C-alpha cells in the first residue's frame, strides 16, 4: 500500500475577490477534519513574492507530498505555480490547481452555492491528488540540422535564415538549377513589390549567397524517397542523379524538415472546353510574348482577357493581369477588354493600378452567373466573346440586343495548382493535404506553418496561394520556430505523454491510425524478437485521442488517467 500523502491546501483570497464570494471559514473547518490534510491556510495574494517565499518554505518545513492551490484559473497562473513547486523540491504533478476565482467565486450569485461548489471542487482535487504520481523527465540528444526541400525563393530564404541562426542546412532541388518558378516565363506569378524591382536579380543574389555559404549543402536533381523517425531524429533517404543519370542513394540524419515545394500554373483545357491555339493563349504564354520583345504584337489591335471562369479566387492573378495590361497599353497601344466577375483589388497598391488602367482606356466588363461564350469567326479571323453584363439592365437584352466583344487575341487565365510530386511527398512524409492538393497547415490562423507532424514545416506557395512577400514572411517564421525547437543539443522533456502498456496491447494498430501527429510507430524489439508499439515522446503532444480510442485500454496519459477523471467526476457529484 502506498504511503499516505501529506497534503497541504493553500487558499488564496485574491485580495477579496474570492473571499467575499466564498465562505473560507466553512471550507477550512470542513477540510481540517481530513486525516491526510496536514496544512490548510488562507493567504491574501499567493502570487506575491513574499507570500510565495513563505509558500515554498512551508512546503519544505512540513515535508508535504501533495499540494492543492485554490486560486485563479490554471490558464493564468498554472505554469507559475508549477515552477514555484519545482523550486521547492516537489514534482510538478503533485500540485493540483482548483479554479476557484473564475469558475466559482465570480459566477455564482449566492454565497451559499459558491461555497458548496468550492467544497466539491476541493474535495475532488483532494481525491485526485492522491492518485497523482510524480512525473519524471528525460533528456535526449537531437540533430540540429535541417532538410529543406525545394530550391525556389521560399527554400532559399529559409536556408539563408537558418544558416544565420547557426544551423546546418541541406537543400534539395529536383531540377538541375536553383530558383524554381523564376526560371519559367511566369515571372509575374510572383509578386515582389509594386516598385519596379527586378525579381530575377533578387533571386540570383540569393542563389549566389546560398552557393557561397559553407553551412548550406546543396543537392540538385535530388529527391526525398524515404523518411523515418520523428522530430529531432529524422532519418532521410535521398536519391541524387548525376550527369549520366546514375542514381546515388544517400542517408541523412536531420532534426527537422521544411517543405518549400511551391506551386505551378496549369491550363485546364477540359474545364474550359477550349484548346490553346495561336489566337487563344494562356497568361504564361502572353508573358512569354511580352518578354520576347517588340515584334510579337504586330497586327494585333485588340486583346480580350477572360477571367473568373474556372475559379473565383483571383487575389494574386488580378495583380498579374492588371500589370500585364498596363504594360501592353503603354507600350503597344492595343485596345484591351477585361471580362471578369469581379475585380479584386484587396491588396496593397492594387487599387492604384486599377485606377491607372481605367484612365488608360482599358474597358472592364462584368458578367454574372452566365458564363461568356467564346467563338472563332473564320470569315474575319477574329474571336468573338458574347456575354451577359448585368449592369446594362434587363431592357437592353429584352430588345433582342446582344453584347459581343470581338478581338484579335484572347487570353485565358490559368489555375494555380501544387507543384508536381506534392502528393507523392505528402505520402512519404505522412502529412495531410487539403482539397486542392496543397499541404494542409495545422491551424490556419494560429499555426500556419506547422503540419500535423511535429518537426515538419511548410513554407510559401506549397501551403496555398502566396505572393513573394508572404513567402518571405513564412520563411522567417519557420526559421524562428526551428531555431526554437533545435537550438540546444540536448532536450529535456517531461514524461507526461501517452504511455503504452505492452502486456495489455493486442497490436490492433488503432492508435497508429488515429494519432493525428503520427507519433506512434511500430518497433521491432530484437531481444525478444517481437513487434511492439512505440510512442515517440518528443512528437507526442499529449492530446489523449489514442487513449480514448484504444479498445484494450492499453494506453494511458499520466496526467489524465481514467481513474483520475472518473474519481473527479464521482466526487463532484456527491
Amino acid at each position, binding site marked *: 500500500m502506498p504511503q499516505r500523502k501529506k497534503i497541504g491546501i493553500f487558499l488564496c483570497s485574491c485580495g477579496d475577490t474570492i473571499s467575499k464570494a466564498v465562505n473560507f471559514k466553512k471550507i477550512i473547518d470542513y477540510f481540517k477534519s481530513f486525516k491526510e490534510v496536514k496544512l490548510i491556510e488562507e493567504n491574501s495574494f499567493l502570487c506575491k513574492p513574499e507570500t510565495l517565499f513563505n509558500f515554498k518554505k512551508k512546503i519544505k518545513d512540513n515535508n508535504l507530498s501533495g499540494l492543492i492551490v485554490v486560486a485563479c*484559473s*490554471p*490558464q*493564468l497562473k498554472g505554469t507559475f505555480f508549477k515552477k514555484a513547486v519545482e523550486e521547492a523540491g516537489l514534482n510538478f504533478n503533485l500540485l493540483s490547481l482548483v*479554479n476557484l*476565482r*473564475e*469558475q466559482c467565486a*465570480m*459566477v*455564482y*450569485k449566492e454565497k451559499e*452555492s459558491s461555497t*458548496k*461548489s468550492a467544497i*466539491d471542487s476541493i474535495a475532488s482535487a483532494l481525491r485526485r491528488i492522491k492518485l497523482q504520481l510524480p512525473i519524471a523527465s528525460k533528456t535526449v540528444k537531437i540533430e540540429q540540422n535541417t532538410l529543406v526541400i525545394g530550391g525556389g525563393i521560399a527554400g532559399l530564404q529559409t536556408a539563408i535564415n537558418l544558416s544565420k541562426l547557426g544551423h546546418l542546412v541541406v537543400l534539395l532541388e529536383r531540377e538541375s538549377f536553383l530558383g524554381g518558378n523564376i526560371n519559367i516565363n511566369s515571372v509575374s506569378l510572383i509578386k515582389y513589390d509594386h516598385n519596379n524591382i527586378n525579381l530575377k536579380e533578387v533571386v540570383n543574389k540569393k542563389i549566389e549567397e546560398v552557393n557561397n555559404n559553407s553551412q548550406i549543402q546543396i543537392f540538385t536533381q535530388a529527391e526525398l524517397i524515404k523518411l523515418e523517425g520523428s522530430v529531432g531524429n529524422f532519418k532521410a533517404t535521398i536519391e541524387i542523379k548525376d550527369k549520366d543519370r546514375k542514381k546515388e542513394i544517400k542517408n541523412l540524419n536531420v532534426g527537422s524538415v521544411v517543405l518549400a515545394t511551391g506551386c505551378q500554373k496549369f491550363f485546364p483545357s477540359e474545364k474550359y472546353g477550349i484548346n490553346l491555339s495561336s489566337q487563344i493563349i494562356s497568361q504564361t504564354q502572353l508573358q512569354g510574348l511580352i518578354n520576347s520583345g517588340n515584334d510579337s504584337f504586330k497586327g494585333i489591335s485588340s486583346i480580350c482577357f477572360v477571367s473568373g471562369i474556372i475559379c473565383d479566387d483571383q487575389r494574386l492573378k488580378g495583380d498579374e493581369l492588371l500589370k500585364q495590361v498596363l504594360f501592353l497599353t503603354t507600350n503597344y497601344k492595343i485596345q484591351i477588354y477585361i471580362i471578369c466577375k469581379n475585380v479584386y483589388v484587396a491588396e496593397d497598391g492594387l487599387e492604384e493600378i486599377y485606377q491607372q488602367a481605367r484612365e488608360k482606356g482599358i474597358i472592364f466588363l462584368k458578367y454574372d452567373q452566365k458564363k461568356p461564350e467564346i467563338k472563332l469567326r473564320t470569315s474575319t479571323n477574329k474571336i468573338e466573346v458574347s456575354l451577359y453584363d448585368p449592369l446594362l439592365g434587363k431592357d437592353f437584352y429584352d430588345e433582342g440586343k446582344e453584347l459581343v466583344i470581338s478581338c484579335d487575341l484572347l487570353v485565358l487565365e490559368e489555375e494555380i495548382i501544387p507543384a508536381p510530386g506534392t502528393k507523392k511527398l505528402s505520402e512519404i512524409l505522412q502529412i*495531410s493535404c487539403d482539397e486542392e492538393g496543397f499541404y494542409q497547415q*495545422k*491551424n490556419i490562423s*494560429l499555426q500556419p506553418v506547422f503540419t*500535423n507532424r511535429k518537426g515538419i514545416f511548410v513554407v510559401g506557395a506549397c501551403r496555398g496561394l502566396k505572393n513573394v512577400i508572404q513567402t518571405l514572411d513564412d520563411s522567417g517564421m519557420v526559421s524562428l520556430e526551428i531555431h526554437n525547437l533545435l537550438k540546444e543539443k540536448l532536450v529535456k522533456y517531461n514524461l507526461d505523454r501517452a504511455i503504452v502498456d505492452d502486456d495489455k496491447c493486442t497490436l490492433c494498430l488503432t492508435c497508429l491510425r*488515429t494519432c*493525428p*501527429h503520427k507519433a506512434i510507430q511500430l518497433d521491432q524489439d530484437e531481444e525478444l524478437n517481437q513487434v511492439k508499439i512505440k510512442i515517440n515522446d518528443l512528437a507526442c*503532444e*499529449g*492530446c*489523449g*485521442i489514442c*487513449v*480514448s*480510442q484504444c479498445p484494450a485500454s492499453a494506453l494511458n*496519459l499520466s*496526467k*489524465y488517467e*481514467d481513474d483520475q*477523471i*472518473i474519481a*473527479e*467526476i*464521482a466526487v*463532484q*457529484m*456527491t
Partner: protein
Amino acid sequence: MNLKNKNEFIPQIVVLCCENSAYRAADMAATLGLSYPEIIKIIPFPCIGRVDERHILHALENGADGVMVMGCLEGSCKFLDGDVRTKKKIVYLKKTLVEIGIGDARVEFLHIAPNMGAKFLELVTEMNKKIKELGPLF
C-alpha cells in the same frame, strides 16, 4: 432513490471541457461578469478527443442529470480531429442511451471557441432549462 419535488429540483450538470476552448470560454464568462443559473461541474480535458463514453456513463451513474461535452469549433481543433471523433462517440452513445430508456436529450455535444463567454452561459442555461423540464434522472 431521490424523489425530489419538480419545483425544487436542481439539475446536476457536468460539463466536460476541452482546455483549449470550452475551459477558457468558462473563464471568459466569469471575466465578463456573467453568472450561472445553477451549480455546474466543470471537468477539464487536454483535448475533447480524450473523452471516453465511460466518463459520460460514470457521470450519469453517479448522479448527473445532464452531461455537456464541449469541444472546439469545427475545423479548429488544436489536435486536428479531436472534436470530430468525440462527436461520433456521442452519436453512438445516444443510441445506447435511447435503448436503455434514458433518452438522448441528456447528453449533448457542443462546439465553442475560447472567446465565446456569453455563448457558454447561453448553452449552459439552455441545458439547465431542458434538464429541468425532463426532471431528475434517478
